[in-house]
C-alpha cells in the first residue's frame, strides 16, 4: 500500500518534478535512479559484487562518514546553546545537562561519536594499508585520506577545549605545549593557535571557530574529493582477475542454437562473446540497502554509550589547580609518553616522521602486488614494518592512558590515574 501511494505520488506532476524516477521497477529504472539523483549519484549505477562483501572493507570508511554526519548534526544542535566565552561556556554545559530537552543525550552522542570517529578513521587507514588499496592509481587518494585523518584529530582536539572544564583546559594546555616543542616555529605555532601564551579567552574563541567553521568546511570538501576519487579510480581496489576460461564465458552457458561465425571475430553463440563474466550488481538495491543498514548500526553504536555514560564534565577550568598528571586527549597520549622521555623526539621527530612516512608511502611502494587482498603474502616486508610501527604507537598510547599516574610515574592501571590537587581537603 505505501509502495503504491509512493508510486502514485512520483507519477504526479509534483512528484515527477522532484524524483525523476519512482521506486524502480526495472533494471533501467535502477540505473536511472542512481545516475539522476543527487543523493545517489556518488555511486555508479552498478558496482562489483565484491563491494557487497562485508569483509572487503568492514564498512570502515562509510562508518567514518556516517560519524561525521552525526557529528555535524549534533554539533549544529549544540551550537544553539553553547556560548564560546570563558564565563559562559561551562555554564552552557550545565544548562545542557539540567534544563535543555535532550541536551545531555545530544552532547553525549557528539562526544562518543567524536571518539569513535578518531578510532574508525584510524581503522580505515589500517584497512587501506593492509589491503594495499593505496597503490596506483589510488596514491593521491591515500594522501587525501591522510589529510582527513589529521583533520579528524584537529576537530576532536579543538572540540576538546570547548566545555571549558578542568579536563578540557589541562588537556589542551598539555597538547599545545607538545606543539611548542617544534624547533624554530614551535613557539610561534603555539602562540598563533592559542592567541597568547596560555589557554584563555583568545584560545577558546580560536578553537571554537576552527571547530565549527574552518575544519568542518575543509573536512566536507576533502571528503567530497576523497569519495569522488574512489569512484573515478574504479571503486574499491580489487585483485587482478585471471583471464576467464572459455567455460566461464557467458556465451558458453547458452544453448548452441545459433552461430555468429560469419563475423569471424570470435567463436560463440551470442553477441557478447569475449566479454568477461559479469560480476557487476545494481547499486540499487544491493549496495544502497547495505549502506542504510550500516547507518542504523552506526547510530545504534553511538546511542548505546550515549545512553549509558554521560560525556565527562569536571570542575570549571582553573589555571591554579593542575591535575597530576595533566593528560592530553587519549589519541595524543602516545606522543605525550614520548615527550616525557624526550621533548624533541616525541614532540617533533616522531610525529613529523609518522606523517611524512605515511604521505610518501604510496609513492615508494608502487608495485601492484597484493592489491585488494588482506595481508597479502607478497608484501611481507611492508606489512611487518607498518605493523611494528602501529603496535609501538598503540603500546605507547596504552602506557600513557593506563599506566601513568601522578608525576607521570609508572603504575598499575587499577590505581587512580589522576590525582586532582585536593581543593577542599
Amino acid at each position, binding site marked *: 500500500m505505501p509502495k503504491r501511494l509512493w508510486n502514485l505520488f512520483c507519477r504526479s506532476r509534483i512528484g515527477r518534478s522532484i524524483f525523476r524516477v519512482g521506486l524502480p521497477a526495472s533494471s533501467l529504472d535502477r540505473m536511472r535512479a542512481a545516475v539522476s539523483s543527487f543523493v545517489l549519484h556518488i555511486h555508479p549505477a552498478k558496482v562489483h559484487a565484491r563491494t557487497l562483501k562485508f569483509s572487503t572493507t568492514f564498512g570502515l570508511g562509510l562508518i567514518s562518514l556516517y560519524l561525521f554526519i552525526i557529528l555535524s548534526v549534533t554539533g549544529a544542535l549544540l551550537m544553539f546553546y553553547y556560548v564560546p566565552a570563558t564565563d559562559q561556556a561551562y555554564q552552557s554545559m550545565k*544548562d545542557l545537562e539540567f534544563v535543555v530537552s535532550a541536551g545531555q543525550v545530544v552532547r553525549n552522542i557528539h562526544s562518543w561519536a567524536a571518539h569513535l570517529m578518531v578510532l574508525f578513521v584510524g581503522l580505515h587507514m589500517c584497512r587501506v594499508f593492509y589491503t594495499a588499496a593505496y597503490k596506483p592509481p589510488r596514491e593521491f587518494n591515500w594522501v587525501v585520506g591522510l589529510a582527513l585523518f589529521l583533520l579528524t584529530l584537529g576537530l576532536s582536539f579543538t572540540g576538546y577545549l570547548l566545555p571549558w572544564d*578542568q579536563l578540557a583546559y589541562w588537556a589542551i594546555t598539555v597538547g599545545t605545549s607538545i606543539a611548542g616543542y617544534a624547533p624554530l616555529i614551535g613557539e610561534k605555532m603555539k602562540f598563533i593557535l592559542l592567541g597568547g601564551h596560555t589557554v584563555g579567552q583568545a584560545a577558546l574563541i580560536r578553537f571554537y571557530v576552527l571547530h565549527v567553521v574552518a575544519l568542518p568546511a575543509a573536512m566536507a570538501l576533502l571528503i567530497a574529493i576523497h569519495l569522488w576519487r574512489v569512484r573515478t579510480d574504479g571503486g574499491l581496489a580489487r585483485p587482478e582477475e585471471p583471464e576467464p576460461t572459455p567455460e566461464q564465458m557467458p556465451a558458453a552457458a547458452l544453448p548452441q542454437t545459433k552461430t555468429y561465425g560469419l563475423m569471424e571475430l570470435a567463436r560463440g553463440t551470442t553477441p557478447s562473446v569475449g566479454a568477461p563474466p559479469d560480476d557487476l550488481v545494481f547499486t540499487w538495491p544491493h549496495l544502497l540497502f547495505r549502506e542504510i543498514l550500516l547507518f542504523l548500526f552506526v547510530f545504534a553504536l553511538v546511542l548505546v554509550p550515549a545512553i549509558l555514560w554521560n560525556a565527562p564534565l*569536571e570542575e570549571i577550568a582553573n589555571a591554579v589547580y593542575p591535575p597530576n598528571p595533566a593528560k592530553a586527549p587519549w589519541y595524543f597520549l602516545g606522543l605525550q609518553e614520548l615527550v616525557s622521555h624526550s621533548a624533541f623526539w616525541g614532540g617533533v621527530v616522531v610525529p613529523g616522521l609518522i606523517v611524512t612516512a605515511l604521505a610518501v608511502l604510496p609513492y615508494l611502494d608502487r608495485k601492484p602486488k597484493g592489491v585488494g587482498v588482506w595481508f597479502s603474502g607478497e608484501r611481507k616486508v611492508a606489512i611487518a614494518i607498518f605493523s611494528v610501527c602501529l603496535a609501538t604507537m598503540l603500546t605507547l598510547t596504552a602506557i600513557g592512558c593506563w599506566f601513568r599516574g601522578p608525576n607521570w610515574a609508572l603504575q598499575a592501571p587499577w590505581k587512580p590515574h589522576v590525582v586532582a590537587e585536593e581543593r577542599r581537603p
Partner: protein
Amino acid sequence: MTEPSPRSLYPWFTALGLLVGALVIVAYYKDQFREWKEWQHAYIQQELARATTPSQKAAAGRIPVEIRQTLLPGLDRVDRCETCHLVVDDASYAGFQQPLAYHVNHDQHPFEKFGCTICHQGQGRATTREAAHGQVAHWDHPMLPMKYIESACAKCHLPSDVPGAPQLARGHALFNELGCIGCHKLHGVGGAIGPELDTVGDTRSPEWLAKHFKAPSAVTAGSAMPPVAVSDDDLEALTLYMLSLTGEPMSDYYVSMKTLPGLEAGRRLFAEKGCIGCHSIGGKGGTVGPPLDEVGKRHDAEWIIAHFRNPQAVTPGSVMPRFSFTEQEIRSLTDFLLTNTTSSMIGSLKIPALMTPVERGREVFVKYGCTGCHGQDANTGIRNPNAKTAQQVPGLKFVAEGYTKDELRKRILGGQKEIPRLDPKGPQPPLYMPAWRSRIAEGELNDLVEYLMGLVPKSEQEKEAF
C-alpha cells in the same frame, strides 16, 4: 552470475530498525524523566488537597510543571532551587518538610534579588537533588551546613556588624584578639609566616579547619602554628569566620550593603571622618563646634538626622559643612551619637584622636597580630622549638631595658629572619620576626614603640612577679 536477492537483508532491517527505535525511546524517557517533576506533581497534589472552593481547585489544576529559576545577572548565577523548593515564599507552608517548606525570615533578602546559593552555596543550575546540593564529584561548593550559615553574611557585610549573626561576630573578634594576622595575611595585611587567608573558606572544609585549629602540626606536618586554645564554642565561631573568607567577588549592587547601619559602623565613621577635629567628647577634641557629650539628651534622632542632611537648615549660621553621607551612614552616625557619647565611654570608643600614644600603640599591637606570638599583653611568647630564648618567642615586658627606641624601630621594620638557635646543630626555629617595613604606617610605628617602651614594670614588686 545471478543477481543476489536483497531479501536476505530484510531480517537485518527489522532487527537494526527495532534496536535503533528502542534506543531512541529509551533516550527519550531518560530525558523526560526528571526528579524535579515528581516534586512539582507532589506540590500540585498538595494544593489540590488544600483547595476548598471550585475556583481554588481550578487554579491548583492550572499550576504548570516547569523549571523555575531566578536569574541573577549581578552575581553571574542562575538559581533553579525553586524548581523543587516551590513554596519558599508561601508562609502557609511554614513547618512543612523539605523540599516543600517555607523559608522563614527572608524579608531582608528577597529571593528575586539574592537567589539562594549566595548564602546556601550548592549548584544553582542543577535540577537534581544531589547535584544541586553539590554532593557530587567535580563540584567544589557543596551546600553550607546550617550551623555555619552565618559565614555567608560576610560575603556582603562586615563580619562585626551583622544583626543576628553572633557567631560570625565572635569569630571575627577572636581572629583579631588572638593575633592571627601576625603570621597570616588577610586582605593584604599581616605577616608572611603562615599562608594567606583570603580564600581559606573556599579551599578548606569545616572539618579540616576544626581539626587544624586543635592540632595544627598533626594536620600539616611541620606547621609552626601553635594550637588554638579556646573553648569548643569559640573554635566553632573561628571556623565559621574562616569559612566566610571565600574571596568571592561580589558586584557593587551587593556590597553596597557592606556597612550595615549600626553602632560599630557609626563609631568607625566618627573616627574616620575626623569629627573630633571640630567637636569634643569629655573635653578632648576641637572647639569649633559644640561638645558632643550627652548629645542624645539635648536632641532626638530626627533632629540629628535632619542636621546631618543640611546643618544650616536646622541651625542657621552653622559653619558645619554638608558632608555627602549616604542615608545609611547618617543612620549609623546618629545611632552612635545617641548612645555612645558619654565622657565615661571615651576609652572604649577607640577614636585615635582621643587616645594617648600608648593607648594607640596597644591598638596597633593588636591590629598587626603581635599578640599571636608575643602574648596577649606582650608578656609571654608562644613556643618556638630550638629558639635560644628558652624555646619561646620572647615576651616584650622588658624591651625598654634592652633596646633604645631607635633600635626597637629598626627591629620592627627589618624583622629577624634568622632566629639564634639553642642547639646550633638543631633545626631552624619555625617562627621568626617578620619585617613590617612598608606594611606599618609611620604614625602607627611611633605609637607602637611608645607602647612597648612603656611596658617595663614600674615597681620592683611587679618585676619580681616575672
